């Protein structure tokens, strides 16, 4: 559908994906976020993913120094930040070089032509200028002299040259706003807020933003304008949120719902550090953050806090979880409620710290000495991190068991609109401390959950000792008795299994039975859902289900699986959950596996589905 705007065509699209790419110093994250907010406030559904260089600061203009931000906005409910961009904004040659391969032929390139100088081309390893040779044939290349136009716009601003140059990202943003018919209003507001103490800079930023917008309007560069209408999201109040922000707020909320203070013990590590930064801001909630000397001290501290009756939380990524494993085993033995948030990144070892995958699942399930089961929950979208953070503490406390919140770098750093919940809608988390000296024994068990009592220091008459040696049933004394060890081993195992009575059934999207079930967990949700939606639209017998509880698995999972002819499990690892599912349900589940530090493309999953399901309906 296309209409006219002035003398140019306006084409209506239902989804657009823009990737802003430039030097780390070029402010790409900022403009990306501004565009996202603007689109969201307008009413689009949005999804974003940053791509920040691994190196702290590689040399300016070099390929490792390129920083990017992708935003996808649409008129329908979207689930991934888009397989491939429709538009690549390249602020310099390195940005073009680093990202061109992701842009499909026919895609638009908005290039800052000023920066394609000989020096910069060399830094990006270009032998000749791609804007001038034929290498970009097949793309829609739009050259904009962003650097010089911005400089000209701010010539009178009284800023120095460096400051002026730093504003050029806003000029580019102005151009893009015009192209997609967006309001400058939200960005202007945010600039004013940000530079409240520096009105000169604020004004300059707004000037160049507008200059970019007007440039778009007056220049003859764009033959068509694009508009993406509002999406139909459920009504409510929304904000954008990344997975790590949502998790931090979820943990804060859990503390409120349980009415117990939170101790967050942690040692910084990518991509989990944001949770520390976020929680450190909220001391007035009674949250204490403890930056420990290492990961072991961090988990030690929260075990101590849990012993004392607080909510103990730590967050880390794979290498940190490895270090915490001995202490996590202690928490299993003493049966105290702690939550360990694991924001997975690419491994093994240091791996690729700023890239993500799902390869820490088996470490989470089995990476401790002895039979040492813990509960595990796994959010599937950035905003779900909020709910599952609460769920992790609910399980930990009700079942007196360490619980792992297993997220990943994609979820942690990607953002999407989040319908802000009302506190009143969230159920309280009941906490009961033991108090009665006459009946108290440290290792009695709740009939239903098998949880032991939470008995905290300071309670008169309940003085007792816990520890890492095997405990005697009921009394909790040290025991080397063979029968007792067998009994306690089974208790610990069954305690986790019984959580299955306390969690939702599997939610199948699509028909409850059929030829193929695509079974996933974690951040692959968006790509799986999109692929399955497409395949179903094409008439294929495919459904999907995303597991949010990985230990224990939902009690009806076996039933669900048995209703499908075949099972496909896409995972960003070599088949970790698949191994468990195959073993548990004796089902020959197939894998679609990718370990490259990148999320699945919808297309990859769709292709695999097509290869597995005979498309009777279509033929």
């Amino acid at each position, binding site marked *: 559908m296309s209409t006219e705007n002035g003398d140019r065509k306006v084409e209506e699209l239902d989804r657009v994906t823009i990737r802003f790419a430039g030097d780390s110093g070029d402010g790409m994250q900022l403009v990306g976020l501004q565009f996202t907010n603007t689109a969201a406030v307008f009413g689009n559904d949005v999804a974003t993913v940053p791509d920040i260089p691994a190196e702290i600061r590689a040399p300016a203009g070099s390929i490792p120094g390129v920083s990017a931000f992708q935003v996808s906005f649409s008129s329908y409910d979207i689930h991934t930040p888009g397989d491939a961009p429709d538009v690549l904004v390249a602020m310099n040659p390195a940005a073009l070089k680093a990202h061109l391969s992701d842009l499909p032929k026919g895609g638009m390139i908005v290039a800052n032509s000023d920066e394609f100088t000989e020096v910069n081309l060399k830094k990006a390893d270009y032998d000749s200028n791609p804007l001038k040779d034929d290498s970009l044939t097949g793309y829609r290349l739009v050259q904009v002299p962003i650097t010089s136009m911005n400089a000209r716009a701010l010539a009178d601003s009284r800023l120095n040259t460096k400051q002026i140059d730093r504003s050029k990202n806003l000029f580019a943003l102005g151009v893009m706003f015009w192209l997609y018919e967006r309001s400058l209003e939200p960005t202007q507001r945010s600039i004013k807020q940000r530079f409240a103490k520096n009105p000169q800079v604020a004004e300059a930023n707004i000037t160049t933003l507008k200059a970019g917008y007007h440039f778009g309007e007056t220049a003859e560069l764009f033959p068509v304008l694009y508009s993406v209408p509002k999406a139909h999201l459920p009504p409510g109040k929304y904000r954008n949120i990344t997975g790590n922000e949502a998790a931090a707020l979820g943990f804060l909320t859990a503390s409120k719902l349980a009415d117990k203070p939170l101790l967050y013990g942690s040692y910084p590590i990518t991509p989990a550090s944001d949770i520390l930064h976020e929680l450190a801001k909220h001391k007035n909630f009674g949250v204490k953050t403890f930056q420990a000397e290492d990961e072991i001290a961090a988990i030690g501290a929260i075990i*101590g806090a849990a012993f004392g009756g607080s909510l103990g939380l730590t967050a880390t990524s794979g290498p940190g979880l490895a270090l915490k494993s001995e202490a996590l085993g202690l928490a299993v033995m003493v049966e105290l409620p702690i939550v360990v948030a694991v924001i997975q990144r690419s491994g093994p070892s240091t791996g690729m710290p700023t890239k993500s995958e799902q390869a820490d699942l088996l470490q989470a399930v089995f990476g401790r000495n002895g039979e040492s089961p813990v509960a595990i929950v796994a959010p599937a979208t950035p905003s779900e991190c909020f709910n599952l953070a609460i769920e992790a503490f609910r399980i930990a406390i009700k079942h007196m068991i360490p619980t792992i919140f297993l997220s990943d770098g994609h979820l942690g750093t990607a953002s999407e609109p989040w319908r802000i919940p009302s506190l009143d809608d969230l159920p309280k988390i009941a906490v009961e401390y033991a108090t009665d000296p006459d009946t108290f024994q440290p290792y009695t068990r709740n009939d239903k959950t098998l949880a032991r009592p939470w008995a905290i220091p300071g309670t008169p008459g309940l003085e007792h000792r816990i520890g890492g040696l095997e405990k005697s049933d009921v009394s909790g004394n040290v025991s080397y008795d063979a029968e007792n060890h067998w009994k306690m081993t089974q208790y610990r195992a069954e305690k986790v299994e019984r959580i299955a009575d306390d969690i939702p059934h599997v939610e199948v999207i699509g028909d409850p039975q059929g030829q193929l079930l695509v079974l996933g967990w974690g951040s692959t949700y968006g790509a799986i859902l999109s692929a399955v939606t497409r395949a179903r639209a094409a008439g294929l017998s495919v459904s999907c289900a995303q597991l949010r509880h990985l230990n224990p698995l939902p009690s009806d999972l076996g039933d669900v699986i048995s209703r499908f002819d075949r099972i496909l499990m896409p995972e960003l690892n070599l088949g970790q959950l698949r191994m468990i599912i195959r073993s548990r349900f004796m089902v020959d589940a197939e894998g679609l596996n990718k370990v490259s530090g990148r999320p699945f493309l919808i297309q990859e999953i769709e292709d695999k589905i097509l290869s597995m399901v005979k498309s009777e309906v279509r033929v």
Partner: protein
Amino acid sequence: MSQATTDGQIKLARKDFVSDQEVRWCPGCGDYSILTQTQKLMPELGVPRENIVFISGIGCSSRLPYYMNTYGFHSIHGRAPTIATGLKITRPELQVWVITGDGDGLSIGGNHLLHVMRRNVDLVIVLFNNRIYGLTKGQYSPTSEIGKRTKSSPAGSIDYPINPLSIALGAEASFVARSIDIDVRHLMSTLERAARHKGTSFVEVYQNCNVFNDGAFMEFADKSVRPDRTITLEHGKPLIFGKDNDKGIRLNGTRPEVVDLGNGVSESDLLIHDETDPDPIVAHILARMQWPEFPVPLGVVRAVDRPTYDDLLNDQVQDAIKSSGEGDLTAILNSGDTWEVE
């Protein structure tokens, strides 16, 4: 047994702090004495029993919490200071003790010990130094002497030993002391001082492991020679020792020297012990005095005031509440750019 005091309060007795668990150390082990003194001390502190927590790592020494009728946590090797930190900063009203050994505290747990001391978390840390790994049946430890032959060093240890007090002082610990299992009165009073200090109290206790390292300290601690080979530090007093109180320690520049009193040397020439000296240099000098060059110092080497980590942290929380009000979750959830979808 507990008994009512004149003001009607119940005064507890040692027995109230004895748990129902059978004590399982080798007969003759120095750990017994430390346990007894600790149990005896408890009623003196006036802290309700339920507010006392003993946290330990792994080792013979680390079994102590089982024998105390208080709250207790026998954790994992080397990590007790971390658990104690988490407990103390969330429950500042509790009195938290850390029980550790020379292996637990200085080998695998060295880093946690160092960090807890520099942070000055308000804990009482008692390190049982028997210069050996007892529980694992006799390997040399970080405090074993060079040349020591053990199961793991049949040709003699080549690891230069750690001086626990030097490490504590290097970390600027606010309370640093040393005592010994067989001097029960000194031990009791040192533990009491440690318990009453605000901030991390670090107490090294020389402890005899009669099975794997018997007599490790006898050369200077045996009753017959102790007065001549150890020196008891007392705040504000000159450093005098000897059976006949006829010897002292004088500083020559920064070097300590043993002098005989009389013959022109008087008490006023001697080093006066000042445990409150904010500068830890003299404490460092004392910490390094070793038999046979010097008598071995016993007592409180350092006791200074500095803000505790737990107080500072809790103050920050209170300040945040004062300045921004009690956290309003709804406001935080709704912060940033928001929009309505109808």
